[in-house]
Structures are given as structure tokens and as C-alpha cells.
């Protein structure tokens, strides 16, 4: 090993392809999608689904299981004996997400696939469960899954979740009751299963409230399950192409085997922690998505400045820079350094190194950086920045969510601080 910053070929090639998707399918209709909040762009959905299927990606934006290079046929990247190709699945995924979000983060969020729901199954499911629940994303119709953790009274504090799961021993079914909100893709995963493939939602609920975190489990709830209803689609500041659903569960019955993890409660939190580990994998991806928006805004700003005859002179000492030069140069530094944190976090994931610290670091940084960059860019562009004639104001609105979902900036600061201090959750709340 040595320290290297060369973009791997497969990633560079993929970026070229996705950039053209971003320019031709997303940017052209970004505004329209923003103004028709709950419309579904079927063209895009179909196109992406077919494109990803034909690339054999295992369905949707996921980390493809990588074959060890020794199993690859000659000529398919197989190297000499004993030489191993380093895995780059997460690095590739982060780069894909960044580029799609550079196109339009709302569109990116409705790219067909298992999303956070499938990520939970992949992290906490048994081999049989993975086979049963994950195969569908590579079938003929575009298919979605979603994750339902948040409730009206439980956001950052996931231990405050009130949803309940009780086993009905007569029928061997779990009976779920509760109210979930802010479910990304909840509507597409649960209700549109005629036009789309049949998806599912993963619902977090307690099987033993007295056990607190140790009693929390995730359940796969198939689309259309009776007793479950999408009761509301939120109207949002940004990412309007993405549906954010409120879902109520009233005596909803799911088969016994749909529980992820052990059906009995041990008085430890290992099961819960295991599931929370999903976030180590997904936080840098959310960061990557935000940084795509940040890059879009910064590139747009620089283009407009050039058009208006404002040159950014690199290489000057601070005292000689104009205010705009200072801002733009600082934005570039922030954006690039945040992206490198993302790369490091996903590189660690690819190399099976524990990356909880680096994941949260990348999320903290990205949340800060993209909100600052988009806010500053609107400010510098003046009335043009505030105008809906350009997408910049939309990116400003889209960017803000980066610092909120998948752990707010504050929650991720807590994670970082606990790591560097060696503190537990009870030592630093």
C-alpha cells in the first residue's frame, strides 16, 4: 500500500457516463420536477432501472458483491498470480452518488433500488432473508425499499421510539403498531406496486419496551400489507422530487421470519449496535450526495463569474485577494477536503476497516460545507442567486438536508467526539 489519489479507471469511466445522464436527463427537467412536487418522472425511473440492470449492478445503487480477481476469467481485469485487485465497491458507489446528485439530488433519491431499506436487510438480515428480500431489485420492474425509524416523538433520539411489535403466537405473526414519519421513498416503496415492482419498508419497533435499545428490532413490511397506510406526503424546502412519507401502522401483521435479527431479547445492545452499523456505511454516501450539490453550485458560480468578467486569481497572499476570491478559494478548499474525507471513509469500508469515526467525520464536514457553499453562492450572485430562473436557489434548498438526515450535524459531532475522547454514549450525551 501507499498513499494514492489516482481515480481508478472504472470510476472515471462511470463518471463520464453518469455526467451525461445528469446533464441530459436531470438538469433539463430539474426545475419542472421542483415545481411539481409529487410527480414521478417515469422516463428517468425506467431508464435508470434498465441501465443499471444491463450493467449487472445487482439492482439499483448498491455495492456489487465483488468477485475475487482469481475467479475472474482471463482478460476481465485478472492480474498475475497472487496479485489482488483492491475492492472499490463503496468508492465507486460514492462517486456515482456524487455525480447523480451533481445532476439533481432529488432525482438521485428516486433512483430505483433498495436504498436504506435494503441496506438494513444487508446489514442485519440472515442469508435467507437477504436472498428473499434483495433479489427483487434486479427484476423487470423498478422497485424501491425504504427505512422507517423516525417518529413524531423520536428523531435523533432513536431510543425513544414508541412503535411496538407483539408476537401473535397463534398465527406466528408480528403485529405492528406505530406512526412513522419522514420516510424517504416510503410512497414508492409501499403504494405504487402496480406500475413498479413490489417493494417493502423496514420498520423499527420495540419487542420489549422495558429493554430499551436492546428490545428494538427492524421488520420487513411488504408493500400493500393491510393495516399500513401512507397517510401524508410532506411538502419540503428542497429535494422535492423525493417523496417523504408519513406511514401509520395499525395492527399490521407480518410473518414471523420478517424480523431482522434475533426474536428474543438479550440484555445487551449488540443487536441494535449491529443495525446502527448500517450508518457507518451510509453516512459517507449521504455526504457524497450533498457534496454533489455543493460542486454543482460552486461550478455554476465560477461559470457566472467568468461570464461577468470576474477572474479568480490563484496564488495570491490573503492581503491581495478580493472578497470574492477569498470566498471562492475557501469554497474550493472546503469542497475538496470534504470529498477526500468521504473517499477515505469509503476506502476504509472497501478494505473492511472499522470506519465509524471517519464516516461521521465526512458527514459533519459535508453538512457544514454544502450549506455554506450554497448559501455563499446565492449571496455572491445577488438577485441572480435568489432568482428561480437559475437552479442555484434550488441547490441552496436541496443542500440543507445534508446536515439533517442520516444523523444531524450535532449527532455526528457527538459520534466524532465520543471516538476521540473514548467516551460512551452515557458519558457524553
Amino acid at each position, binding site marked *: *500500500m501507499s498513499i494514492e489519489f489516482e481515480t481508478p479507471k472504472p470510476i472515471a469511466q462511470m463518471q463520464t457516463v453518469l455526467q451525461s445522464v445528469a446533464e441530459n436527463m436531470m438538469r433539463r427537467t430539474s426545475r419542472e420536477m421542483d415545481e411539481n412536487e409529487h410527480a414521478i418522472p417515469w422516463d428517468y425511473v425506467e431508464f435508470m432501472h434498465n441501465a443499471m440492470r444491463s450493467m449487472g449492478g445487482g439492482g439499483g445503487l448498491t455495492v456489487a458483491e465483488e468477485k475475487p480477481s482469481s475467479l475472474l476469467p482471463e482478460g476481465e481485469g485478472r492480474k498475475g498470480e497472487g496479485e489482488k485487485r483492491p475492492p472499490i465497491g463503496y468508492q465507486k458507489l460514492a462517486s456515482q452518488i456524487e455525480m447523480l446528485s451533481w445532476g439533481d439530488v432529488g432525482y438521485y433519491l428516486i433512483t430505483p433500488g433498495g436504498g436504506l431499506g435494503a441496506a438494513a436487510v444487508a446489514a442485519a438480515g440472515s442469508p435467507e432473508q437477504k436472498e428473499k428480500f434483495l433479489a427483487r431489485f434486479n427484476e423487470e420492474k423498478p422497485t424501491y425499499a425504504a427505512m422507517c425509524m423516525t417518529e413524531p416523538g423520536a428523531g435523533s433520539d432513536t431510543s425513544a421510539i414508541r412503535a411496538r411489535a407483539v408476537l401473535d403466537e397463534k398465527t406466528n405473526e408480528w403485529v405492528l403498531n406505530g406512526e412513522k414519519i419522514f420516510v424517504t421513498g416510503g410512497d414508492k416503496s409501499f403504494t405504487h406496486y402496480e406500475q413498479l415492482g413490489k417493494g417493502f419498508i423496514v420498520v423499527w419497533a420495540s419487542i420489549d419496551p422495558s429493554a430499551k435499545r436492546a428490545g428494538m428490532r427492524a421488520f420487513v413490511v411488504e408493500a400493500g400489507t393491510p393495516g399500513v397506510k401512507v397517510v401524508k406526503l410532506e411538502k419540503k424546502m428542497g429535494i422535492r422530487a423525493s417523496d417523504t412519507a408519513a406511514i401509520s401502522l395499525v395492527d399490521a401483521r407480518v410473518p414471523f421470519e420478517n424480523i431482522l435479527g434475533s426474536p428474543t431479547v438479550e440484555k445487551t445492545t449488540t443487536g441494535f449496535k449491529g443495525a446502527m452499523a448500517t450508518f457507518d456505511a451510509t453516512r459517507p454516501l449521504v455526504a457524497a450526495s450533498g457534496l454533489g450539490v455543493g460542486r454543482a453550485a460552486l461550478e455554476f458560480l465560477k461559470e457566472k463569474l467568468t461570464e461577468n468578467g470576474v477572474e479568480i486569481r490563484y496564488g495570491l*497572499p490573503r*492581503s491581495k485577494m478580493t472578497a470574492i476570491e477569498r470566498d471562492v478559494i475557501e469554497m474550493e478548499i472546503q469542497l475538496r*477536503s470534504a470529498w477526500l474525507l468521504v473517499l477515505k471513509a469509503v476506502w476504509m469500508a472497501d478494505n473492511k476497516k472499522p470506519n465509524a469515526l*471517519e464516516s461521521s467525520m465526512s458527514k*459533519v464536514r459535508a453538512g457544514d460545507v454544502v450549506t455554506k457553499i450554497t448559501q455563499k453562492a446565492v449571496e455572491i450572485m445577488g438577485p441572480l442567486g435568489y432568482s428561480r430562473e437559475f437552479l442555484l436557489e434550488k441547490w441552496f434548498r436541496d443542500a440543507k438536508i445534508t446536515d439533517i438526515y442520516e444523523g444531524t450535524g*450535532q449527532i455526528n*459531532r457527538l459520534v466524532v467526539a465520543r471516538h476521540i475522547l473514548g467516551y460512551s454514549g452515557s458519558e457524553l450525551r
Partner: protein
Amino acid sequence: MYSFEPNEEQQMLIDAAGKFASAELRPAAHDAEENREMPKRLIDKGWELGVLQASTPEAYGGFGERSALTNVLALEEMAFGDLAGALAISTPALFAASILLGGSEAQKKEYLPKIVEGAWSPYSAALIEYAFDFDPNALKTSAQADGDAYLLNGEKAFVPFAKDAQALVVYANLDGATQGFIAQKDAAGLSVADEREKLMGLNALPMHRVKLENVRAERLGGADGCDFGLILASMQVASAAAALGVSKSALDHATNYAKEREAFGVKIAQKQAVAFMLAEMAVELEAIRLLVWEAAWKLDNGQADAQNAAYLAFVGACDMAMMITDRGVQIYGGHGYIRENPVELLMRNGRGFPMTLGLAIV
């Protein structure tokens, strides 16, 4: 490929430099600053780590190839111990690396073995000028061709070990562009001020003004000159690497202190206002570290945008160092303001990076 793991050789150097910095430089930092002198013993010991020697090719007396990235890794470790110490130890590299990067074959043969093969000896370089709008690309010190040689006029500031230096690389303005010139210790018209520079920090590093009045000097790189952009980028990356070390030290002190110090019945680290400062310091440090590594990697690999990357890494590192060292003092509270406590010096050092570009090179 992307990878964030130092190779074996680099790791050995990191370990050795880190051990020396923690065990020897760090404990000596406070007294060195107060006494305005870095013990020679420590300079010699740091020199023996062989950072410069390992990045000088065998043909010129060393035993390796120059790698900006490797030097960045070493310099962060050394500066973690003490900034003045790290800069003192690597002062000969200011001269030697300028020659390696911009010198002619003859200049390399003449100077490098002398510097690299023996004990630490004072060779230095003069870039900084005492002006509020100091800009390495618009120097006021001038160079004019005079037959085979050049005549230098002007005044340089913050020149480390100028009093003892055998020779200096002096940077000067030649027809609007910065170029390097090799001036000998006893050249006519070259005078080194007796008085040391008086600065907010870095007082263990002896620095002097150098006046140049029609000083005859040889041009770095011979008749064709040198690529000053490359030299400047190497200085920027070096300064950034040193900023990483200083910041890492401040974070380290602040983290330990926050876990010890109690207020309102808990450790102050258990208060979010303090814990979040620490978290942000850690994020900033790691983010800028990667930016510096990338710039160094680009320099090593001759990437087209390497010099711009070095500039951005430098600007980012300057802000990082101020932010982190300031918070280091804040977390110590009133105790942070007392010179007995290490974060005080770190904050004074932390402000210096924008002004002291040119005191290190990788």
C-alpha cells in the same frame, strides 16, 4: 487507485520522527522558546533521522529519491513535537531542496554532498520580505544580470540561521519573475543584521534580516534559471504539513486536558460545548491533512494542477492552524493563557503560517 495508507518505508519514518518528536522535541519546546534557543543536541539528533538524506539521490550523497509526500509525513510528525525545532532541523533542506528542485547539475554536484553527507550544517534560504503585502511572486528584492553573474539588491527578512549560514539561496525578482540565486556567506555587499528577528512566536529559531547591496550571485539552475512555481509549491506544502503537526499537538493537548479538568461536577469534555469544539477540530485536521497529502502526491506525480493544489492546501492549512490552536487555548480557559501551558505557544505558532511561508520545504 485511491489509498490512504503510508507505505512501509514511510511508516518507519513516521514512527521514528514521531517518537523523537514526542520524547524529545515536545518536552523541550517551552524552554527553547523562553530561552530563545533550541539545544544543538536536539537539532543534531533530529538531523540524524535523515529525512533530507533519504530524499537526496545517491549521486549527490544521499540514499533515496525525493518525495514531497514522504517529507510531508515526516514534517507533520516533527512539528507535532515543536515547530521551531522542526524548522531548525530542516533548515539545511531549505537550501538543499531548492537545489534539488531548481539547481543545475553542476550546482547539485557542488552543494548537495557537502550538506547531506556530514553533520547538520547551516545552509539556508531567504524568501520573506518585511512588507505587509509580501508576495513570493512579486518580490521587491531585485536581480540584474551582470556578465555571467547577477547583482542582488534589497532586504530579506526572517532568514533562519543567517548568521552562520555557509551559503544562502536568495529569492529575488528578475524581470518581473521570482528566481533563486546562490549567494556565498562572505560575498561583498551581503550583511546579516546582528539583532535577531523579534517575533510573536518561533523564538527558538534564530532568524535575521539580510541586506543585499550589489551582491554578486550565481543563478539557481544556471543560465535557464529554475521553475520557481515548483519550489514555491514545495514550500507551501511544507508549511501546510508543519501546520498539521502544530494543530495535531493542540488537539492532543486539548483532548487530554478536557478529560482531566472538571467543572460543574463533570469533566469539561462531557459538556457538548467543549466536545463539539474538539470534534470540529478533529474533522478540520483530518480534512486538511488529506488535502495536503493530495497536493504532495500531485507534486510527486507531476500532475498538471499540482501547483494550484499546493496553494489551496496551504491556504486551507493556515486557516486550520489558527482555528485549532485558538480552540486549544479556549479549552484550557485561563490556564491556556499562561505560558506554562503548551497550548499558549501553539496558538502563537498557529498564527504564523501565512507569514512564514518559505521557512520549510519538502
